[in-house]
């Protein structure tokens, strides 16, 4: 194997592929990155792959192939090296059981891992539809924030993707909050109806890393074809992820449809005030909000500890309300809305509240909803 490639192109591709390398590989070959130089799709290309049996990543870049071939080297080391090479043409070639990377006056010799032991990457499922890459990345990050991190409840560590024709709904919850985002996409089959539960962290990383192309193709394996898998591709990059199993909560029933109070607050001011006041809130002590008379009073701490209070202007329709939240959960919701004005809808102080952005036209519904459970104050 022997080929030449520009340093920036190589470094980008290697860095992206290396993201999914396992930190503690269950078998040593999984620490490797597979380099395959040759004719792919009628062009001279280098294909880089990584795989840990959960997530696979593959990227193809144009190169000049002198001698086609395949090799497996330590992915972390290759990523470190390519990131630090001078901005010149890189030549990579095999020399017996070694790989030589030369660039300018620098030359590295790397050991190889046995290619024949490397697992075959899963085939990409058939393309199901496409969505704008920026819209997708934004939507996923809005929802993934509410996903659980507790591996003992695996179904809560995922983002549920529901597809009904050209409508996609993303949802996740950790039992204390629930984020739901609706968006439109272009399905291959306008009648398509499908669901998938994708690990939230992987999905968020993937969506963010696929914004180099204008669109992302989503490929969902049919449920009956064995193990569930979802693939994403765009800008020459493709990645697959195993789906999570388990029953996602029936979240639509949890979204209240009537409210006793609706408040509106300037988001930036609100976020700053929450951060300040919660400085005195110890772990597990809540932030208390009181909406009345066109004002929002934020308070934290009690008589036995440090206390803080801050007052903001706030619009209020309906009943006065006093309610307490975990301040980190509240901040996650406020930061996720896509509007300068936060709208908060309440029923009672022990029922879920909903945070949305104020829609551009007043009658319209928001495509993003963040439901947050309050903290019940003792005594």
């Amino acid at each position, binding site marked *: 194997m022997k080929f030449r490639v520009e340093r920036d192109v190589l470094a980008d591709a290697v860095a992206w592929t290396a993201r999914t390398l396992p930190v503690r590989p269950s078998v040593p070959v999984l620490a490797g990155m597979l380099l395959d130089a040759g004719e792919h799709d009628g062009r001279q290309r280098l294909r880089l792959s990584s795989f840990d049996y959960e997530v696979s990543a593959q990227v193809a870049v144009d190169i000049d192939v002198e001698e086609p071939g395949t090799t497996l080297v330590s992915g972390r080391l290759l990523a470190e090296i390519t990131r630090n090479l001078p901005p010149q043409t890189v030549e990579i070639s095999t020399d017996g059981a070694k790989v030589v990377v030369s660039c300018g006056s620098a030359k590295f010799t790397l050991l190889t891992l046995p290619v024949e032991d490397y697992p075959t990457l899963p085939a990409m499922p058939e393309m199901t539809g496409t969505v704008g890459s920026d819209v997708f990345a934004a939507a996923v990050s809005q929802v993934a924030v509410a996903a659980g991190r507790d591996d003992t409840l695996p179904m809560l560590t995922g983002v549920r993707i529901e597809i009904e024709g050209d409508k996609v709904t993303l949802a996740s919850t950790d*039992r*204390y909050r629930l984020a739901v985002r609706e968006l439109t996409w272009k399905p291959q089959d306008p009648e398509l109806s499908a669901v998938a539960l994708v690990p939230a962290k992987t999905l968020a990383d993937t969506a963010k890393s696929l914004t180099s192309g204008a669109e992302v193709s989503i490929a969902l394996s049919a449920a009956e074809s064995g193990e569930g898998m979802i693939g994403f591709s765009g800008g020459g990059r493709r990645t697959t992820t195993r789906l999570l199993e388990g029953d996602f909560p029936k979240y639509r029933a949890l979204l209240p449809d009537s409210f006793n109070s609706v408040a509106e607050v300037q988001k930036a001011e609100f976020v700053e005030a929450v951060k300040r006041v919660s400085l005195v809130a110890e772990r*597990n*002590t*809540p932030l208390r909000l009181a909406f009345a008379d066109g004002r929002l009073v934020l308070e934290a701490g009690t008589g036995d500890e440090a206390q803080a209070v801050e007052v903001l202007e706030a619009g209020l329709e309906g009943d006065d309300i006093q309610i307490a939240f975990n301040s980190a959960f509240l901040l996650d919701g406020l930061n996720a809305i896509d509007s300068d004005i936060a709208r908060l809808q309440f029923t009672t102080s022990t029922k879920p509240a909903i945070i949305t952005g104020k829609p551009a036209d007043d009658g319209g519904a928001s495509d993003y909803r963040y439901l947050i*459970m309050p903290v019940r104050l*003792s005594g």
Partner: protein
Amino acid sequence: MRGAVTASGIEPLDLTTVSDEDCPILHIDMDAFFAGVEELKHPWARGRPVIVGGTGGRGVVASANYAARRFGVHSAMPMSRALRACPDAVVFPPDGASYRRVSAAVMDILRSVTPEVEPLSLDEAFLDVSGARRRLGGPVRVATLIRERIRTEQRLTCSVGVASTKFVAKLASTHCKPDGLLFVPARHVRAFLHPLPLGALWGVGDKTEQTLARLGLRTIGDVAATPPETLRRELGVALGDRLAALSQGRDERRVVTDAPDKSIGAEETFAEDVADAGRIGRELLRLSEKVARRLRATGQVGRTVVVKLRRDDFTTITRSRTLPDYTDVGREISATARSLYAAAGLDGARLRLVGVRVEGLRAAAGVHRQLALDEPESGWRDAERVMDLVARRFGPAALRPAVLAERDEDDV
């Protein structure tokens, strides 16, 4: 010594005729506690004189077993003198961590009898067992049961005094040491007290003893026969009144349990080692329910669940997880405990003992609770509170999770 005080001195106990309704106070005192723990850690030292204490130039004896005491060794004695009296003694430096661990296990046994436990130190506690009658029987029976459990589960002996007041119960346990049980019926309190020396009175130190000796008083009976005015004049109102009351066997102090716990736990040593994961899971559920019941009874909630697993070769591992929120719900504790067991990689290993402990305690009244989306308006917490009410009347076995129910031959 095991016995009961009667009009004609101390006689052997007859559990069938004992009338102990008005004597619900127990004083439990571990026998030579530190030395006993060291003997367990170092079986080769068993039967030999064992002394625990500082070995430096000014070291003093913290504890000595009965073999050492026969040579006149007692606690607070300088180590150098103790070793002159008993040169063959095995000396161990104090190992606080071990003593605390065993003490916690002993206190757990006491708290499984009643939540009314007042620990005085690592090796001593008062109990008020009035509430355990329906479930376990009268105070003397409960005392017998506690001694039996401490002996089989911790392989240590203790002495228990049973009386109507804390003061008399404590004197009784001292009187019957080691490995004893002494029941002082309320009507024989004076007969028991009056021959005892003044020093046995709670609050009488050297100085007070000298003052009383000047008045010609040598026994508790002498104090009881002295007019209260005289005692007040000589000792001041507070102490004078107190000694007058104590010498008559009156002691109004109640068993107070408000000392905050650092943790609450329960453990079970299987009669035979168990490898079956299903059975171990059920035992973890049972222990979790027990711990949760005690958390609720004492108005506490905790955040960290600790599981203790001891293999048949005595190697012990503990695993813990801190929950996102404080809890006193058995369901939540047992779910965590079982997942810790599942993750410990002891599947199929033969276990001798399992334990569940909740740490990071605080008063339930001071804890705000993050509500969860899928939490019904009334959930497990409320169900378990109802179980508490039932358990208070009919004992913890009356109502429990179905998987813990034992099948009866009559069940269809």
